[in-house]
């Protein structure tokens, strides 16, 4: 095999039914099979009944296929793509709060941010919040540069990804029971992504 010393990161995208407990099922699968999850993000799509997960795992390409096969065994998982094996776009969003309590540090901060697709989105007398939405390696690089200023708080969304071009991961799925037929029990499972 031509296993380059490329990144051992595999990015999987899963379309799942927007139902309660689905995130739990996916998370449980990763724990049960001892797969190493780097990040897992979940959010809505343009279709009301379908959510989309992006999962980054530490492993070989074969691990990626194995995980995909296991994900597909879950009844609520509609489709899976191993997007790291195809041309794709991936983004990670981070908010980084750094010390910026004098002119020097504020200058340094501005200079650093100019080199990245990053913005200062909040600034006060003591600290500033930098926002970046970029490929994961760029986010990592920015974090390294900001470290000397003193990072005091940070949050990242985890990677979201999409295959490029006409490779479309989509499903026309509509649930069997139309929502109007449901008796109101306050469950609201199609509205909120509850676990």
């Amino acid at each position, binding site marked *: 095999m031509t296993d380059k010393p490329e990144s051992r990161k595999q990015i999987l995208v899963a379309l*799942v*039914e927007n139902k*309660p*407990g689905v995130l*739990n*099922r996916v998370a*449980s699968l990763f724990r*049960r099979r001892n797969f190493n999850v780097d990040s897992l993000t979940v959010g809505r799509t343009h279709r009301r009944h379908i959510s989309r997960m992006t999962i980054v795992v530490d492993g070989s390409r*074969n691990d990626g*296929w*194995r995980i995909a*096969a*296991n994900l*597909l*065994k*879950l*009844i*609520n*998982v*509609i*489709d899976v793509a191993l997007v790291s094996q195809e041309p794709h776009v991936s983004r990670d969003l981070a908010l980084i709060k750094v010390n910026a309590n004098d002119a020097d540090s504020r200058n340094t901060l501005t200079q650093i941010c100019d080199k990245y697709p990053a913005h200062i989105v909040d600034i006060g007398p003591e600290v500033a919040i930098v926002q970046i939405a970029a490929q994961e390696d760029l986010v990592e690089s920015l974090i390294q540069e900001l470290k000397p200023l003193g990072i005091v708080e940070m949050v990242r969304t985890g990677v979201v990804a999409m295959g490029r071009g006409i490779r479309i991961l989509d*499903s026309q*799925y*509509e*649930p*069997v*029971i139309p929502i109007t*037929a*449901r*008796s109101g*029990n306050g*469950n609201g*499972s199609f509205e909120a992504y509850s676990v």
Partner: protein
Amino acid sequence: MTQLLNGSEILLECLIREGVDLIFGYPGGAILPTYDALTKYPQIHHVLVRHEQGACHMADGYARATGKVGVAMATSGPGATNLVTGIATAMMDSSPIVCITGQVTRGAIGSDAFQETDVTGVTLPITKHNYLVMDVHELPYIVREAFYIARSGRPGPVLIDIPKDVQQEKIEFVYPTDEIRLPGYRPPQKARPDEIQNALELIHQAERPIILAGHGILMSGAMNEVRELAERAQIPVALTLLGKGAMPESHPLTIGMMGMHGEAASNYAIQDADLLIALGMRFDDRVTGNLKTYARNAKKIHVDIDASEINKNVQVNVGVVGDLKTVLTQLLPGVKRMSHPEWLNRIRDWQEDSDERDIINREADVLLGAQVLNDLWHFTGGEAITVTDVGQHQMLEAQYYPHQRPMTMITSGGLGTMGFGLPAAIGAKMGMPGEEVWAIVGDGGFQMTLCELATAKQENVPVKIAIINNNYLGMVRQWQEFFYEERYYATPMFNPDFCKLAEAYGIPSMRVTEREQVAESVTFARAHNGPVLIEYMVQKEEIVYPMVPAGADLDKMIRRPKPNEA
């Protein structure tokens, strides 16, 4: 015409439409509305078990004997958690069962209410799928999906958790007639043509091919196709424990079970083969031994309905995902007639060596488990459905009770659940009343679920119970002898008088201490139209040979010495 029915009645209406006429269960507060509804549906027979684990194993035994979906029912909390071992057993052996559990009312969920357990959470990793029904309108759809999921693709257990107030809520009942819509569930069927071509190429190149026949063959009903493949290309067939019955064991090409306690000839053949054709099996560690040295010289074809099994334990050259019967039907027209006389002769030599070592015809001054099993095979004409527990007697059954027909050997292979035997045998007998059913159990496992003797008696199920009693946890004792320097800690058993115990339940019994009595015991068992218990007092120190130590190379077996070496 629509009817106003409550959730419980809707559930039972749906079960009847799935062909359910038998439920194994145990009542309790949260499932009581459904038990009350059962009074209105005499076409469903409810079997009252003595422990919910028994209900699950009975549904499992029923499913494995009949090929239909077995149904177990329990109340919330402890009732549901008692099902867990049975569900995990069914999951590991791909057995189609549907478990129905009561749950506290919707409003009480999450409040640590009396007898509340997060059952869908608990069973999530051990079910093929599970449901918490929060809306009675969904119930008919869920029941239909549950049965479809349980029996299709790679079968498995499905659990439906129904809050008490959902069981009580009344709505207009309309049975859904549209297609089941499960967008994420597409059981594979056919193989891709290139996969078939690649498999054919390997089969035609092979000089020392071997078929590894697994449970999937029985599930798919591909026995004839497997036999056709074996005969046409003259390929020997080794069986997994759950694959027993996939090929008639009297067939000259069947070389017997593989793995830890498999036939030595099968294990040698696998290690020596240049092609493995793995059909509906999953390369369990008990089958492969050390993966690093497993079938090193062999190319591998693996056909399985579960894509995640391909390349899981063993890297294969050709992986085919599909239904076995369909795939083999695609493959067979391309298979040339072949012969491998040299290869088959080599295997015959190994078999002859094993015959020399065999214990079955040796004189012994004590009764041996191996002889009991072989005599039971002889006196039942090899035609009984045998349901085993887990341990030495299970392996002895696999070695000494050859099966000719599929679905006549029922055992907990994957999970190795002690206590499985008796309840599963009751379920099997209730599913197949026309068949002779023997529960083959050890003295250890039997005591884990012996409360089901009462169930067998109450239902008057004519299941024949053979206790192979060595007053030891024999398999554990065997490991202690080989690998723990004979420190027999926590394996000697104090046992009750099993015959008196049977008497207490009103069950006829007999104790066998001599080999000559085995024939009589079968006659005795058959003479009573109800449960019968036979206790066979066997040698304490009996060892199951051959044995591949856990993690050792498959051909590094501990063998029984030949008579002249002993």
